[in-house]
Every structure is written in C-alpha cells, then in structure tokens.
C-alpha cells in the first residue's frame, strides 16, 4: 500500500511537471492567437484578459480587405497612427515565403535524392572529399559570407527576385539533405535493387522504381526540413529582397513589429498568420520529423 501510494505520488508529480512544460511550450503561441482576436483598446488594459471580452475577426479583416477595425476607436476617435499599413503586406509576404520555400523543397528532393543515392551506393574518385566538402560548406557562419553572397546575386542580376532566395537557400539546405538522405539510403538493403539491376534496369530506374518507394519517410522529412529552413530564414531575406515583390514573411513581420507606432493587435495578427504554416507542418508530419531528427543523431 505504501509502495502503491508512493508510485501514485510520483506519477502525479511527473504529470504535473509535464503539464507545466506543456503550458510553457504552448502558452506563448496561444497568447499571440488570443491577442490577435482582441480589440486594440482591450489589449492595452491593465491587467490584460486571457479570455477576450469581445473576440473579433476585424483585425484579420483589415489585413485582408483594408477595412479599419472599429475597436481602435477610443472615445469616438480613431487612433490612426496605431493602424499599421504594413500589416496589409502580410498575405503577399507569406505568399512569397510559400513560393520560395516550396521551390527549394522540390529542388532539394529531386537533386538531393539523385546525389545522396550516388553517395550511398556508387563508387567514384573523389567521393569522400566531395561529401566532406558539401558538409563543410555549411560550417561557415553566414554573416562572414553575407556580402559576397550579395555580390554574387547582384552580378547574376537576380536582386529582388525569387531565384535569388531560392539559390541561396539551396546552398544552405542541400548539404543537410544530401547527408540526411545518404544516411537514409544506407539503411535500405541493396538486395531489391540488385534484383532490378539484374533484370536490366539502369541505376536511375532502380532508384526511381525500387528505392524511392521504400525511402518515402526519409524523403518527407528531408522535404519538410528544407521547407522550414527556407520559410524561416531571415538574414539573407532581409538584404536580398528589396520590395514587397519578394519580401518574405519574417522580413515583413519584423518590419511591422519594429515600427514604434505599430498596432499591437495587428502585430499579433501578422505573427499568428506567420505561425500557421510551420505549425501545421510540424503537427501533420510530427512522426516523420521526429523519426528523421532521431535518425540524424543515432546513426552516422
């Protein structure tokens, strides 16, 4: 009985710690979502309300249609300066992020699969050196090469275009994709391809028809990593993009929030909208991402 109640106490305290951790992890995300559906004046009350008195979608409506929220009215006066015009750029910026990140993701999967399969199965001169070069390239701190990157992009005439970001993000993500997929292919037995090769398939055919279906979980994880890295990147996006034609989500969000006159509810809306795509991805692909991250640390 004593042992049992001791176990119960232990179980209870562990669950309590887990609950506190869950609140610590999710709390900030929930708060920004709650703030985004409050009125500006309500949000500035002291102390704030965790449950909004008058939840409203007017802030979102402003971002998408330009209709000024009535909640910014204080004693009949609009606090005009608290309306952040920039917030209206958010949908376009997220669209830019999405286009760039999706392109990087698709190219990563195609080129990464081709390259990683070669590193995993074939033998050629300079293989180990090339592989180490790929990996080593990611160990340069980005700030050291930021200016040369700018010069390259300028020389190619690509400033303020999608391809500029896509190229830079490919250089940032491909080494990881190659390394990760090489690991993954190493874990798939060669017997099946050998059979296909004996039947007269080319290397490429063996890869496409036999190996790819088996490597699907690894491919999904690699694709998601490439997407997230590109979607979340800030430093290069900040100085390679010059107009809303290419400004990405993080650039616009930081710019809105950096404006001292910014409307706090609209900052919350911008942040909430920016959060949604990676959060959906993280929840939907949770098992694959966890497995992928685990793979990357447990076998090398």
């Amino acid at each position, binding site marked *: 009985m004593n042992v049992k109640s001791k176990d119960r106490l232990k179980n209870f305290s562990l669950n309590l710690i887990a609950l506190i*951790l869950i609140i610590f992890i999710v709390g*900030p995300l929930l708060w920004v979502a709650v703030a985004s559906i409050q009125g500006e004046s309500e949000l500035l009350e002291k102390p704030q309300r965790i449950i909004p008195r008058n939840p409203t979608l007017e802030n979102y409506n402003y971002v998408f249609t330009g209709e000024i929220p009535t909640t910014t009215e204080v004693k009949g006066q609009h606090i005009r300066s608290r309306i952040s015009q920039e917030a209206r750029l958010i949908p376009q910026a997220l669209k830019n992020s999405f286009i760039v990140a999706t392109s990087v993701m698709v190219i990563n999967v195609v080129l990464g699969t081709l390259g990683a399969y070669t590193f995993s199965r074939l033998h*050629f001169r300079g293989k180990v050196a090339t592989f180490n070069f790929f990996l080593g390239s990611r160990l340069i701190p980005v700030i*050291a090469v*930021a200016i040369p990157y700018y010069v390259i992009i300028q020389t190619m005439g690509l400033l303020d275009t999608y391809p500029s970001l896509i190229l830079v993000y490919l250089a940032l993500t491909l080494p990881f994709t190659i390394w990760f997929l090489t690991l993954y292919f190493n874990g798939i037995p060669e017997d099946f391809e050998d059979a296909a090769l004996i039947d007269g398939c080319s290397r490429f055919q063996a890869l496409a028809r036999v190996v790819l279906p088996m490597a699907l979980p690894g491919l999904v994880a690699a694709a998601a990593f490439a997407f997230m890295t590109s979607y979340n990147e800030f430093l290069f996006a900040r100085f390679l993009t010059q107009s809303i034609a290419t400004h990405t989500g993080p650039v616009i969000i930081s710019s809105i929030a950096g404006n001292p006159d910014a409307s706090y509810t609209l900052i919350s809306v911008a*942040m909430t909208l920016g959060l949604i795509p990676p959060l959906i991805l993280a929840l939907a692909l949770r098992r694959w991402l966890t497995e992928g991250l685990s793979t990357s640390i447990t076998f090398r």
Partner: protein
Amino acid sequence: MTQQPAATKPKHNWSYISHKIYPYLSILPVAVVIALFAIYPIIHAVRMSFYQYLLTRPNVHPFVGLGNFINVVTSYYFKESIQITGIYTIATVTGVILYGLGVALLMNTKIRLSTPLKIVILLPWALPAVVSGLLWKWILNADFGILNGILYALGLIDNYIPFLADPTLAKISLIMAHIWKEGPLVAIFFLAGLQLIPDELYEAAKIDGGSGWKTFRHVTLPLLRPVFLVVIVYETMTAILTFDTIYVMTGGGPANSTALISWFAYAEIFKSLNLGNGIALAIIIALITLVLIILYLRVLRTEESTVSG
C-alpha cells in the same frame, strides 16, 4: 542473327560510358550550387578583410593589411561582447541540455501526459526565430506584456517590470527565449538516445538493487555520451551565431548588454557601413567556430563514417 553483335556493341559502349559518368552527373547540380556559394564567397571575404571598404566612400579601397583586424580587436566593444558571448553560450548550452534532457526523460515515461508533450514539443522548433523572438518580446513587454499581467493579477508584483530595459533581466529573458526555441531539438535528440538503451539494462540495474538516481547516473548518462557531445558542440555554435532572436527582441540593448560578438559583425556592416571591419570580425568569429568544428569532427570520427570510398 549475324547482325546482332554489331547492334549490341555500340549499346554496350554507351551503357559503359553512362555507367562511368553517371555518378558525376548525378552530383553535378548540387556541387555547382554549393561550390558557387562556398568557394568564391570565402575567397572574396578573406580578400575584403585586408582592404578598407567604407560604404560612405564607395570608390576608395586602400589596402590596409591587418588594419581591419586590429580595428575590431581594439574596438570599444570587443572585450565586453566576447564576455557576453561567453556568458550567453554557457548559459544557453547548459539551459537547453537540462531542459532537453528533462523533457526527453518525461517523454520516455509511460505517464498520461507524455503523448501530449510529444505532440507539442516540436512546435517552437518549427517557428521562424524572428517570430519566436517577437513572441517573447511581446509577452515580456513592460506596458501590456501578459507575463506582467499575470504576475500583477496574482499579486506578486505591484508595478509592471520592464524586463527588456534592464541589462540583467534582458539577458535572462533572451536566454529563456533561446531555451524555449532550441530546447525541443535537444529533447528529440536525447529521446532518440534514450530509446536506444535496451530495457534489459534497466532491469539488470534494478535487480542489482540500484536506486533511480544510481541507474540514471551509471547506466543512462554514460550511454547518452555520444548525444551529449553532438548537442554540446552544435548548440555552442548555434549560441555564438544567434542573430534573429536578438535582432527582434533587444536589438543588442539595453546599452549593448545583449550584443554578442556576432551582433557587432552585423552592426559594423549594416550600421557603421564599414564592410572591411565587419568582415574581419566575421572571420575572427569563423575561426573561433572552426576550432569548435574541428572538435565536432573529432567527436564524429570516433564513430562509423557515413560514406566510404
């Protein structure tokens, strides 16, 4: 029938050539992209570090030798920002390890809340660092931050605390935001390590009469050693190069109290518009991280390598 050898010979030749060049072709596109953004930029950066490049005087680039390096090492900020970087790195690396290991141990138990914890743990990791930094800046705001609101409502404080306006509190806030964002990855790494430990080892330890702490100390920790090493070196690099979070949360302030050495590389280039100084400082930082990377590769080399020639 007699024509058959003639027909297959060129085909055989072609397949032989394609067999030989296929490996090179398959890695060529990747090699081109990576080489373009690795080899040239490094040469260009090293070259620039020996010249004076002021954006305010765009047409004059005198050779200054090690002048830029001397400028940054003797600058007003160098010593202090190295100290701040050291404090920040030690605090965040220790923090993410304790947090990550704790979360991993909880996720590895059979308690009811371990599954919900596994579901939410990846969320902070998935966000843009810009957004997570703003999230915390927002929560810690001195006028309407929810943390102040909660503390006030609970009667713990009489006045709202300006967390990000005080040098010490700003550092602590930044470290907490860093742990929130980076901890999840470490937790997943530790969980992967924990799941590789066979149950029999724990059972054996139990039969030998080991207490929970003794088992942890003598069975779990030693077996997690490879994970520890990778996490320490990776997180050290992440901490030294932290940029996005500081940019949005504190801008290096108040009074440069949260300005890491990498922040000044950015400030030299984009604020002082002194490209030569900025790149020289970035190269110094690169060399510091290179030392850590060599350590990292040594650690990895002790285990099986991914490709063999």
